[in-house]
């Protein structure tokens, strides 16, 4: 028998520090598989964020730098401008990318930085213990929206993929989900497309990945996947918002 599924080379052996059932691990594996498939592991520099995935530099078997909170797209810009032939990606959560780092992500996309952004949207702050994120759904209860998110004072959840796809130099923008095998297969395809865009030097690419945070949602991992399907996907529709063909 032949091994048809195993640990990609672009992941180290270090066990993930994420809570049971957290989708970060799936997202890590998909990115790593794509790097393996393009055979670019040894020519890749990753930028990890502040948040639960702050330790991603231990998990990805590629050169990594840990940026300040929200600044990963700026740090990645610095790297890519020096090494235009390296593969550069950022891995960011919703607090990082859609709150504190909104300026950096918008302008990296607007300049068309030839980097790939992996954006984990789980509608909550994980590492700090479950506070409201810019992507927290209306009515969703968190530590800092204890009576539910009220759009009158807290605004509506930000749709980053849609927002960024209004920018002319954003070459590939998509939203995927990791709640079931069929969606995971689609997510992988999308991540592969995003890195292909970078390899082809077509400009900025971002995949927004709807993910669960069972611990801070207060749900079991299986319930969390269901909650994502029933609550997040209707508000954050899946699909491609921008493709290189539209840019050209």
């Amino acid at each position, binding site marked *: *028998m*032949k*091994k*048809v*599924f*195993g*640990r*990609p080379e672009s*992941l180290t052996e270090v*066990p*993930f520090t*994420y*809570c*049971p*059932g*957290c*989708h*970060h*691990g*799936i997202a*890590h*594996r998909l990115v790593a598989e794509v790097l393996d498939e393009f055979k670019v592991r040894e020519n890749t520099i990753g930028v990890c964020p502040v948040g639960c995935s702050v330790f991603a530099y231990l998990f990805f078997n590629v050169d990594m730098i840990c940026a300040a909170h929200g600044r990963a797209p700026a740090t990645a810009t610095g790297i890519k401008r020096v090494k235009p032939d390296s593969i550069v990606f950022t891995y960011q959560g919703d607090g990082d990318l859609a709150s504190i780092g909104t300026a950096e992500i918008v302008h990296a996309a607007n300049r068309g930085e030839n980097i790939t952004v992996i954006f984990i949207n789980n509608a909550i702050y994980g590492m700090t213990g479950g506070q409201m994120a810019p992507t927290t759904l209306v009515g969703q209860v968190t530590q800092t929206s204890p009576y539910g998110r009220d759009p009158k004072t807290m605004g509506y959840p930000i749709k980053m993929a849609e927002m960024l796809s209004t920018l002319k130099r954003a070459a590939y923008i998509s939203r995927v989900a990791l709640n*079931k*095998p069929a969606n*995971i*297969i689609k997510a992988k395809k999308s991540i592969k497309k995003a890195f292909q865009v970078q390899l082809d030097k077509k400009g900025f690419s971002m995949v927004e990945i709807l993910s669960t945070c*069972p611990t801070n949602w207060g749900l*079991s*991992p*299986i319930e969390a*996947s269901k909650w994502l399907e029933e609550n997040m996907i209707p508000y954050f529709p899946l699909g491609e918002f921008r493709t290189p063909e539209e840019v050209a």
Partner: protein
Amino acid sequence: MAKIVIDEERCKGCELCLAACPKHILVMSENFNKKGYHPAKQINPEECTGCAFCAMTCPDVAIEVFK
């Protein structure tokens, strides 16, 4: 002919693989691993088709699939 190998020490007992398996041949073991989780285990291995859905959904990359 297909086979899966679960790295029990990586498993955190999240049960996502149980929900993903179309043949329902994954269950939680009664044993604990070193981290204190009940790891997943396969029953009726002859029914496994090697679809890899379990491995795909495993957030800890704890499952290998052979075909």
